[in-house]
């Protein structure tokens, strides 16, 4: 099918002409030689890629960079856009009867980008490395629950050292990438320049903090992607990402202000998709003064008008939530509700002796610009609190600082965070966020532990899910966390493209096609 010549590509090619004829003329016309040939997809991405090792360092646990990893590497198990699971590098997986062993079958015929075949040994080595504390894997504690790998043909078996109900779900998520044993060990520090994966795209060029250029891998085992070349251009500033798209410098971008999304899609003729993603905005409550007072906590929760925030501030791009489960998650329970009741909040505060004239005071920490309107949202909440008698002072921090403070249990009494949970399991939302021995929790008390503890090893799935619902109810009644909303991810692209969104929020180049 011939590609219609758009006005933009016409302008671009005349720009190229101008460059050939004269430098000054080229200065004020579009990009030089890179005419829109239809074979390249440029994505203006919101975060720079920190490293090409998708299994190590704190950033490996950042759901937001996984799109790039997923274009280059294969996960053990893959996820459909609706979060259901499908074969990845593994074609079969499962427990034995008494759940003391796991059995995996590795895909035959898959190749690494250097041409060598992917073997069962690579898979076993990758899993073993993930479980090794020295590898720096941020969720090593989970991978360490299996060990003693045995390889025979395409089969890998391992012993279960400690039962983990969500193990196979994790095999589709963070740090669950198969790496080439030989190439990785041989490369050493040179890995960053020339990483080798088995995914649909291979790395052609890495310009740190500027862009990465990927080329389609002809030996990929799955369907051939629509674009020969994919460029992830790192543009952390939302305004600049919009400018990138509008000027034709990029074909697709994400995480832009919702006002811009509306303007671009409604008046500028850009295509757009908004999907609720598996990412929620929440405020951690720490078990420290003055929030040890249940009245204060419940008042905090009841005085926040989540609906107004979603409707007015996020222009409707969000779904208010009352537990740490978004509607698509396994343990979502729509009967658990916290109400918006500012008068009730005032009464609660009055019981503890606080009022608008004599407010309870604490600090709330927030990121700024990490998520669309995060800082505005906190400002709005602080304004709502102020009216009922809560005086919160805002402290802005970087997300890295949040991780650091959270790991040391030193977050401020209230701390805003966005919690990604692409596998939708309650253990990775309520479990990790509320269990005191988890390094990710902020409220650490024995009553909650007693309720979550037994669920970690619960082998009956129905009982496990019901158990988590009960925990969520308890947490909501006691006011131990303030869930705000499920995010909606805006993705905008130029005319002539089609993008399939992924509920995990991944913007996968292999999911972009020509319309």
């Amino acid at each position, binding site marked *: 099918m011939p590609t219609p010549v758009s006005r933009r590509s016409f302008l671009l090619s005349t720009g190229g002409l101008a460059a050939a004829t004269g430098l000054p003329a080229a200065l004020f016309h579009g990009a030089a030689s890179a005419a829109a040939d239809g074979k390249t997809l440029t994505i203006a991405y919101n975060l720079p890629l920190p490293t090409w090792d998708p299994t190590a360092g704190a950033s490996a646990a950042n759901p937001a960079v996984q799109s790039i990893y997923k274009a280059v590497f294969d996960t053990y198990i893959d996820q459909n856009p609706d979060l259901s699971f499908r074969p990845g590098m593994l074609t079969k997986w499962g427990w034995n009867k008494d759940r003391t062993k796991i059995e995996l079958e590795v895909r035959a015929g898959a190749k690494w980008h250097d041409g060598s075949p992917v073997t069962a040994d690579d898979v076993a080595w990758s899993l073993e490395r993930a479980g090794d504390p020295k590898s720096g894997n941020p969720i090593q504690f989970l991978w360490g629950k299996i060990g003693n790998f045995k390889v025979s043909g395409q089969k890998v078996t391992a012993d279960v050292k400690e039962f983990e109900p969500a193990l196979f779900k994790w095999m589709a998520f963070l740090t669950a990438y198969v790496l080439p044993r030989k190439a990785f060990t041989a490369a050493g520090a040179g890995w960053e320049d020339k990483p080798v994966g088995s995914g649909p795209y291979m790395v052609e060029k890495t310009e740190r903090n500027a862009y990465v250029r990927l080329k389609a891998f002809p030996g990929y085992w799955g369907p051939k992607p629509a674009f020969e070349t994919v460029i992830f251009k790192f543009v952390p500033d939302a305004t600049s990402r919009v400018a990138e798209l509008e000027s034709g410098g990029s074909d697709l971008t994400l995480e832009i202000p919702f006002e811009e999304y509306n303007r671009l899609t409604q008046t500028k003729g850009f295509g757009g998709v908004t999907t609720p993603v598996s990412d929620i905005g929440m405020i951690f409550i720490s078990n420290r003064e003055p929030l040890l007072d249940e009245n204060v906590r419940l008042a905090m929760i009841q005085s926040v008008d989540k609906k107004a925030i979603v409707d007015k501030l996020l222009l409707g791009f969000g779904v208010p939530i009352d537990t740490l489960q978004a509607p698509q998650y396994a343990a979502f329970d729509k009967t658990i509700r916290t109400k918006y009741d500012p008068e009730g909040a005032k009464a609660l505060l009055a019981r503890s002796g606080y009022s608008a004239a004599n407010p309870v005071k604490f600090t709330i920490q927030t990121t700024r610009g990490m998520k669309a309107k995060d800082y505005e949202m906190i400002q709005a909440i602080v304004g709502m609190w102020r009216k009922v008698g809560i005086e919160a002072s805002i402290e802005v921090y970087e997300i890295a600082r949040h991780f650091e403070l959270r790991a040391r249990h030193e977050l401020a009494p209230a701390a805003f965070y966005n919690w990604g949970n692409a596998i939708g399991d309650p253990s990775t939302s309520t479990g990790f966020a509320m269990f005191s021995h988890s390094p*990710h929790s902020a409220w650490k008390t024995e009553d909650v532990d007693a309720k979550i503890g037994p669920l970690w090893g619960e082998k009956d799935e129905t009982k496990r899910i019901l158990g988590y619902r009960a925990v969520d109810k308890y947490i909501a009644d006691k006011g131990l966390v303030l869930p705000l909303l499920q995010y909606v991810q805006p993705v905008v692209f130029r005319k002539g493209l089609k993008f399939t969104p992924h509920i995990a929020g991944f913007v996968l180049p292999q999911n972009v096609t020509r319309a």
Partner: protein
Amino acid sequence: MFFLKRLLLALPTLFGVAVVVFVLLRVVPGDPIAMMIPPGASQADVQNLRAAYGLDQPIPVQFGRWLSEVARGEFGTSISLREDVMKLVAGRLPATLELCAVAMVVAVILGIAAGVVAVRWKGRWPEWLADGLSGLGLAIPDFLWGLLGILVLGVLWPLLPVSGRIDPRIEFDPGSRFFLLAAVVSGRFDVLAELLRHMVLPALALAIPLAAALARVVKGSLAEAMTQDYVLVARAKGYSRSRVILRVALRNALIPAITLTGVQFTFLVGGTVLVETIFSFPGIGNLAIGAVLQRDLPLIQGLVLVFAVLFIAINLCVDATYVALDPRVRRP
């Protein structure tokens, strides 16, 4: 000789810089190790990491070790980017140097032009315009010029790219990190145009404050030169005012301008920290902000030191130029 002496004098300064950098960053609240540990790591793991980064030693020992490493050009590994600091800096420095060079050329041209215009049309509207513009140029800091540039030429009237250094779709293998230089050498003028397009706004943002300061100095010294005898003689010979200014007076008015350019150039280099960030320009300034916000100690130390060395080098060059132009300085 003079130069050698200045070079030796720069050594204690460098040492002082190293001490300040070290002290400043040892008092950072927050433990860099805490950011590196995987959740669930044991206390022993944390201890091992501390030992690996030498953070378990007494402070003077840490300093001595650090200094000897720095002297050998080893700044350690960046915590947030997991790469050798020296390699990171070396990869980014050329972009910043090219940007600064372009900005300086722009500043010198704009500054001298404004100064000359103000003197040539003294007492008429061009003088007031030049004065007004240089006043604004001095009052608006570089990063606000950058934002204004984005607003006007990126948003309201989108003519120029507002982020990055080069369009990644362009097939171009520069062979080094000096893209601009490589484009000129290899005769790729389309690439050159592309590189310059990306540089226009950030370079202008950096250049305008310097240009404004230059305009003032050029105007002042030019006005003074115009009252000197040799200029009056040239005028009496019937040369036009413009010709006298450009051919005679300007040459003599340039010494203070060059000195000022040197001094102000350090400010321009310092300005890259914000301007590069605003324009996502992949230089060391951009890297620095990221490093500070991520509390990436080794990277911050490396970058601050590199900036300091740059500053000292610029000042040395200024001194040298000054001596070359004005031999009187050499006298004690």
